[in-house]
């Protein structure tokens, strides 16, 4: 591009005829326009292609979910269903208690989300506004938990809850996840941006600690709470290993475990299974799309700084 511009430089100090200039301008403007159009076009094309690649599994799933199972087994490329049907969805719900699973997942993810927000904001409040013995060590301890992979504890946890007779209850699904080091860290990061004077003046006004958290901190950290809520809910909804271990009956299974009951590769059930998968992806994707802005604003304004 630059060479082209070089060849267009015109010498002759300020002496260029009106026509010449006009011609040059028209040529260069149309060239610049073409260049700009090409750039935008290329960018858009690259994005469309990339988005297609990224979304391909999902689009494919949706397409299969609407496909009658007879259509699936052909040698030709069958990207879109020729005779779309919703039978798969109906059958999926009939074959397994999908609604029950969805309900279980909602209960579990909902309690985990609310519980984490409460416990994390309480802990973060203590870590950022209060002074007490061992604060530094306790905070280090909490942060250190981020380093412990779930697998290092999952066996013992399983044995513990088994001994307590808690297997196959909502409690066992929810309680181990009622707090998170990441949540405490995120909230603390937000709270640290408020001056201590905010807390001190509230104290002078006779505001109790709890009241301060509920009435002052919570409204000020809406974006962090929103981000936490979206992130925690989606993660809880998508949890696999723990529910797999601790639930045994249909009445307690979450969607991620329940859906694997549809998992078999014989011809009849492929479309059925994918229809089920599509059904259970919908809630997490919807929450993600609705909460995406919140999530980004909350996660990146306080926590991660470049």
């Amino acid at each position: 591009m630059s060479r082209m511009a070089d060849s267009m430089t015109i010498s002759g100090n300020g002496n260029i005829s009106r026509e010449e200039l006009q011609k040059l301008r028209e040529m260069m403007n149309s060239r610049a326009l073409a260049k700009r159009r090409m750039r935008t076009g290329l960018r858009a094309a690259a994005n469309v292609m990339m988005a297609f690649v990224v979304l391909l599994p999902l689009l494919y799933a949706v397409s299969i979910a609407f496909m009658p199972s007879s259509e699936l087994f052909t040698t030709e490329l069958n990207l879109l269903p020729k005779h779309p049907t919703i039978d798969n969805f109906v059958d999926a719900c009939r074959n397994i208690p999908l609604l029950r699973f969805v309900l279980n997942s909602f209960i579990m993810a909902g309690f985990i989300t609310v519980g984490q927000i409460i416990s994390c904001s309480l802990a973060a409040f203590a870590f950022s506004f209060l002074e007490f013995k061992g604060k530094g060590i306790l905070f280090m301890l909490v942060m250190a938990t981020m380093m412990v992979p779930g697998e290092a504890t999952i066996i013992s946890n399983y044995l513990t809850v088994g001994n307590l007779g808690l297997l196959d209850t909502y409690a066992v699904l929810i309680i181990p996840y009622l707090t998170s080091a990441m949540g405490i860290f995120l909230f603390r990061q937000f709270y640290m941006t408020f001056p201590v004077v905010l807390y001190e003046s509230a104290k002078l006004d006779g505001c109790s600690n709890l009241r301060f958290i509920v009435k002052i901190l919570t409204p000020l950290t809406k974006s962090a709470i929103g981000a936490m809520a979206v992130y925690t809910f989606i993660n809880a909804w998508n949890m696999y290993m723990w529910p797999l271990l601790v639930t045994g009956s249909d009445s307690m299974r979450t969607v991620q475990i329940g859906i694997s009951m549809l998992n078999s590769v014989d011809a009849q059930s492929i479309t059925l299974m994918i229809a089920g998968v599509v059904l259970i992806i919908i809630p997490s994707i919807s929450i993600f799309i609705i909460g995406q802005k919140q999530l980004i604003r909350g996660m990146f304004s306080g926590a991660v700084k470049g």
Partner: protein
Amino acid sequence: MKTTGRMNVSPYFYLIPSLLVFAVFLFYPFFKTIYLSLFKTDKMGQAKLFVGFGNYAELLSSATFWNSLKVTWVFVVIVVFGGMFLGLVTAVLCNKAFPGIRVFSTAYALPMAIASSSAAMIFQIMLHPAVGIVNKLTGLDINWLNDPNTALYCVAILTAWLNSGINFLYFSAGLGNIDETIYERASVDGANGIQKFFSLTLPGLSPIMFYTFVVNIIQAFQSFGQIKILTEGGPNESTNVIVYSIYRDAFFNYRFGSAAAQSVILFIIIMLITLVMFRLEKKGVKY
């Protein structure tokens, strides 16, 4: 000092909910796992026979375990680099404003909202030897998930795809943090687009790149659902990553002691990597 006598206990109340959960479901089981790893257990997971480092010795002399380590290593490398590369490419593509940018950025971040189990089931059909779209599009006839040569790559690519969503968000935030005027200065200084990308954009992403790298490694080590659903460690142990091996030893073979020992080793590996990374970061580029 008079005040030291009566200590204020109220701050601890705010920590109780979190610390209680951590104590019961993290600290206690963590030490219990270490304890269990030193014993042979019965089917109920009760420690029966103290064997010291016997479980570890057994593991270190078992070909299966070394295979697990190797498989995990390959898996982690593919997942981390694949996921980060996909996240970086999408973030760069979505960096400048253009019509429809919101749609595309949602699309790129979307994989983070999808469960590993759901994704695994979709991939299972995509990779199905007879009806799967992959074989149909490429014209190949490969049984991807039953071939020891391909199964691991398939599972790893699926995981990379799942992780690319959050990586996209990290990198987008990182790009947004780069001051726009340094690009203008670089233009005036005579840099072209490629020079700007390599001397400004990539280094500008390095702090977030580091963070993303650590998070990705830890996440990759813990992948489970997709392997359980797609391959169950097979074929021929070719996808038997440590986490899956732990699961199988504990809940199929009821060898809780050995599984606990593997968990401890996994923890040590992750901790070492994290520590090394932080040490490297302190030495390396930092601003």
